[in-house]
């Protein structure tokens, strides 16, 4: 499964991370619905059953709470399960296992056992899957102490963050994006791990800081292009993980630009953008020239009709408008 480093898809990058870590460490195994013979609903696990066999690439019944809990128990015994939940939408039935067990066990039992597991799943909207299949629930996971949360935007990060997650001793939620699986880019080699808690500047700029993660990085970059054409240089920063959150890099940027917009595909109320904005207010209040802008999905269950769906999810134009608002400017064309 080797592709040219330059044009590896996000999907194949994840596949490489899984394969390399399984070769490196026998305690790593994969479990999830249709990941083996069917090779994954998004074909992320292509070829892995053939290479590693049924003991390590395990097709499960449709039983998310059960096999997520199984993974937690196996991790307590020292294995390193990588659980695939087909999409984040189905994680809701496993939420008790994630919140009541995975995140609590190390602390609640006084550090006697850790839970070195990964739960990876894609989310996001944009394919007209309507209300029950379009969630971005990043905030629900980021809310919970005891979890670590990684949100890769590029193939390089998808690979490097997942490798770090597999080697981490805590439960890590890796939130992939359905809309990014085909995205191509360079990836690192076997030893390229991306540490948690290190944001990256995707595009430097001096006028306004845009914080965006996962697929929204690409929306923000498109917006930054449009803004540049109007003479506004936006800086796009991708936190890459929410637990831990690299507030230093975000705050340093905002102190320089004095303006910030946070873009998040989730809902606005008590969401990721709200949380990041609160951190930035606390860290940068004296430097801010304008209220921090937020761009979220509309506060509605995701509609099916294409025009409504597109209106509901953050678009580059929404980001452009929010950035210009921090500069007391309106969109000009």
């Amino acid at each position: 499964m080797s592709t040219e480093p330059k044009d590896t898809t996000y999907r194949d990058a994840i596949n490489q991370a899984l394969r390399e870590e399984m070769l490196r460490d026998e305690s790593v195994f994969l479990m999830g619905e249709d990941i083996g013979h069917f090779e994954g609903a998004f074909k992320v696990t292509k070829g892995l059953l053939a290479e590693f066999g049924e003991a390590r690439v395990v097709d499960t019944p449709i039983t998310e709470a059960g096999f997520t809990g199984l993974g937690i128990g196996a991790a307590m015994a020292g294995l390193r399960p990588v659980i695939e939940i087909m999409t984040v939408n189905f994680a809701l039935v496993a939420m008790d296992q994630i919140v009541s067990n995975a995140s609590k066990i190390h602390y609640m039992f006084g550090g006697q056992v850790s839970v070195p597991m990964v739960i990876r799943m894609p989310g996001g909207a944009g394919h007209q899957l309507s209300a029950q299949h379009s969630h971005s629930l990043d905030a629900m996971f980021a809310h919970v102490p005891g979890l670590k949360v990684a949100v890769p935007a590029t193939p390089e990060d998808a690979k490097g963050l997942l490798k770090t997650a597999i080697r981490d001793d805590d439960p890590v939620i890796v939130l992939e994006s359905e809309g990014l699986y085909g995205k191509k880019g360079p990836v690192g080699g076997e030893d390229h791990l991306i540490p948690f808690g290190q944001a990256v500047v995707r595009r430097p700029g001096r006028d306004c800081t845009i914080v965006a993660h996962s697929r929204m990085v690409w929306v923000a970059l498109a917006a930054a292009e449009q803004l540049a054409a109007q003479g506004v240089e936006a800086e796009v920063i991708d936190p890459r993980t929410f637990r831990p959150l690299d507030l230093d890099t975000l705050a340093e940027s905002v102190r320089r630009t004095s303006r910030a917009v946070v873009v998040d595909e989730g809902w606005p109320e008590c969401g990721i953008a709200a949380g990041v904005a609160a951190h930035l207010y606390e860290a940068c209040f004296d430097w801010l020239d304008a209220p921090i802008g937020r761009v979220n999905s509309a506060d509605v269950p995701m509609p099916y009709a294409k025009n409504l769906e597109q209106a509901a999810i953050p678009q580059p134009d929404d980001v452009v408008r929010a950035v210009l608002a921090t500069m007391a400017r309106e969109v000009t064309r």
Partner: protein
Amino acid sequence: MSPSPPPVPPPDEMREIFRTMTLIRRFEERASEEYMAGRIGGFLHLAIGEEAAIVGTVSALRPDDPLTSTYREHGQALARGSDPRAIMAELLGRSTGICGGRGGSMHLMDVGRAFYGGYGIVGGAVPLALGLAWAARYREADQVSVTMFGEGAANQGVVSECFNMAGLWDLPIVFLILNNQYGMGTPVERAAAVEDFYPRAAAYDIESWKVDGMDVLAVRAALSEAARLAREERRPACVELLAYRYRGHSMSDPDTVRAAEEKERWKARDPLVTFERVLLGEGIMDADAIAAMQAEVDGVVDDATTFARESAEVPVAELADGVYAQPWNDDPRGSALVRP
């Protein structure tokens, strides 16, 4: 019902079983006093009346067989040999507690003794036990994972999910349904379509049966057979124990729902009293030996209580310790989610 009963344990073991049952009873009676005195907070669920189910189970297992339980688990920890001092200190929320005061009564754990914990979400620990069984098989080890849960928990969907996976993958697990006939104030007949629970496991091709949970030797025999199936034949098993708890659901339950006549009927079958009769009848212990054992146990409980009361509180500076196995911020006041 249980296949042919294995031989009665040797006298030493009989005495040890009785001592452990007595220790659990006396320990929990003391815990209830400490609760009434305000030194134990939160929920305190006593298993008084269920000692045969607990000790019969643990005595049939190997010490390295992973055991998981519910919030009603002081007895499981004691039966596994955990230090009564550390357990009482945990109940009092002290730094010397078995989980450093982070867990309390509902969340004891002693990993060194393969006791993988007490859990508070009804039914929620059953998949963890499945994972422990999975890990044993993955490593080609011969441990058997045993998980104890109530008949109320048996109604949770995730338990059926686990029956299915255990049956599907032949995992070395024993599901132990401790049917004390009530989930809080709800009797079985108002909660379950069918009063027996073990046939649910049978529906997933899991060998299962029901035994008298007030008889420690019957429990022990059933668990020996269940563990043998899981260990030697690598097949899951399920045992339903019919039992009764003598106290309310927790200390805050005045226990007014259950009829006095019913309670008396089950108290007449007190597992400690009936087992004492067996020991006396078989000449394994005499009245003096029993009195001496009880005095010794009371001493252990006294000592544990004194130790717990005199132990230091957990320093607040350690509030955020242990949220992560690989932490990045020790500031107890700050959010653990921000890098310093």
